[in-house]
């Protein structure tokens, strides 16, 4: 069975635009350099620089703050850091997610076919990170999140991206942390750091050193709020990216 396209989630900073999006494609490219020599009987190539671009397609819903077209337009060519994430499969935690860090829209095309809905295509540039989704949805209590299995343990750290989409009530220094362990039971977890937040937005946590194979989020503190809605993607260097 394949992965249904409609299970995707598109996040743009604190906004979840999944309901106004109906298509996306991500293209990752690696440049190749010819590396032939006098003793090579066939062409030789070597991979050099990597890059990528995300294209999203959605519906025009209005010009107000919080509307997808308006928010994308506000990030067209911006030098202010923005984050775009595509969670590929929201049917379960632990599925892949990509994050465009320092993202900006390089091209927005409004399409207005006379007999159809107004739609637009947006192309996104940024530094691409690849990871797994550790959290996606509403949080109403402190405690441990679902244990996710990485493809392997990492030794070079990584980055966690927390997209806080909504807060119920008022949060002051709500806290989410990342833990890892070498056993699935997480009997002796290692704390890899915490993110504190008091408002919606995107928060990064740089992880250093070893990231063991089993990971989870821990909701340490709601900060006085009754709950919040968020997604967290964990990108581990040398493992997921």
């Amino acid at each position, binding site marked *: 069975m394949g992965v249904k396209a409609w299970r995707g989630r598109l996040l743009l900073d604190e906004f979840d635009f999944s309901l106004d999006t109906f298509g996306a494609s991500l293209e*990752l490219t690696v440049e190749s350099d010819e590396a032939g020599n006098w003793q090579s009987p066939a062409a030789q190539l070597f991979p050099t620089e990597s890059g990528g671009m995300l294209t999203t397609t959605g519906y025009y819903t209005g010009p107000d703050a919080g509307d997808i077209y308006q928010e994308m337009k506000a990030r067209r060519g911006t030098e202010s850091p923005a984050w775009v994430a595509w969670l590929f499969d929201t049917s379960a935690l632990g599925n892949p997610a990509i994050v465009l860090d320092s993202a900006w829209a390089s091209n927005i095309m409004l399409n207005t076919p006379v007999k159809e809905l107004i739609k637009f295509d947006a192309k996104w540039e940024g530094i691409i990170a690849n990871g797994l989704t550790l959290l996606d949805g509403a949080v109403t209590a402190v405690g441990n999140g679902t244990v996710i299995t990485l493809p392997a343990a990492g030794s070079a750290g990584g980055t966690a991206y927390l997209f806080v989409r909504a807060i119920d009530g008022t949060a002051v220094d709500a806290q989410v942390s990342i833990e890892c362990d070498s056993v699935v039971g997480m009997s002796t977890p290692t704390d890899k750091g915490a993110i504190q937040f008091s408002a919606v937005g995107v928060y990064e946590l740089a992880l250093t050193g070893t990231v063991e194979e089993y990971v989870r989020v821990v909701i340490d503190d709601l900060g006085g709020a009754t709950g919040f809605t968020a997604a967290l993607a964990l990108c581990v260097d040398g493992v997921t990216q």
Partner: protein
Amino acid sequence: MSRTAAKENVGLTYNSVDLRAHLNSVSMEDVVEVIESMTFASTAIEKGAGAPSFKISVGGPWSKTLHQAVAPDTLTPPTTLRTLVYYVGPSGSRVTRTWTGSATVGAFISNYKIDATDPKGDIVWTGTLELSGLPVES
């Protein structure tokens, strides 16, 4: 002569990961550089064979397993090229080409595209595998 169906008779392994369950199209391009060698003494166009080069275009249904096999290499290209094994044909009359990964011989991914443009369908992917050096054929 009997014909051969593609299903169950094409295989591709990249970096020890069997990609068959993630593929529904594989096209291997085997190109020899054409060197024009005509001179004033020639009576017609003369061409000679240069070095060969190889490339494989792939595509199929996307999955987490597939993504974990190829995405890291597109974000952090490997310094040691990956081992790639490609075969075509049924057992007994099969052609297998193997590029064993090293600093100069092997495979890497130059293009990986994840496509979810049809909300009614599945996520699909396409990719290009660049191949460096000569394979061992068996």
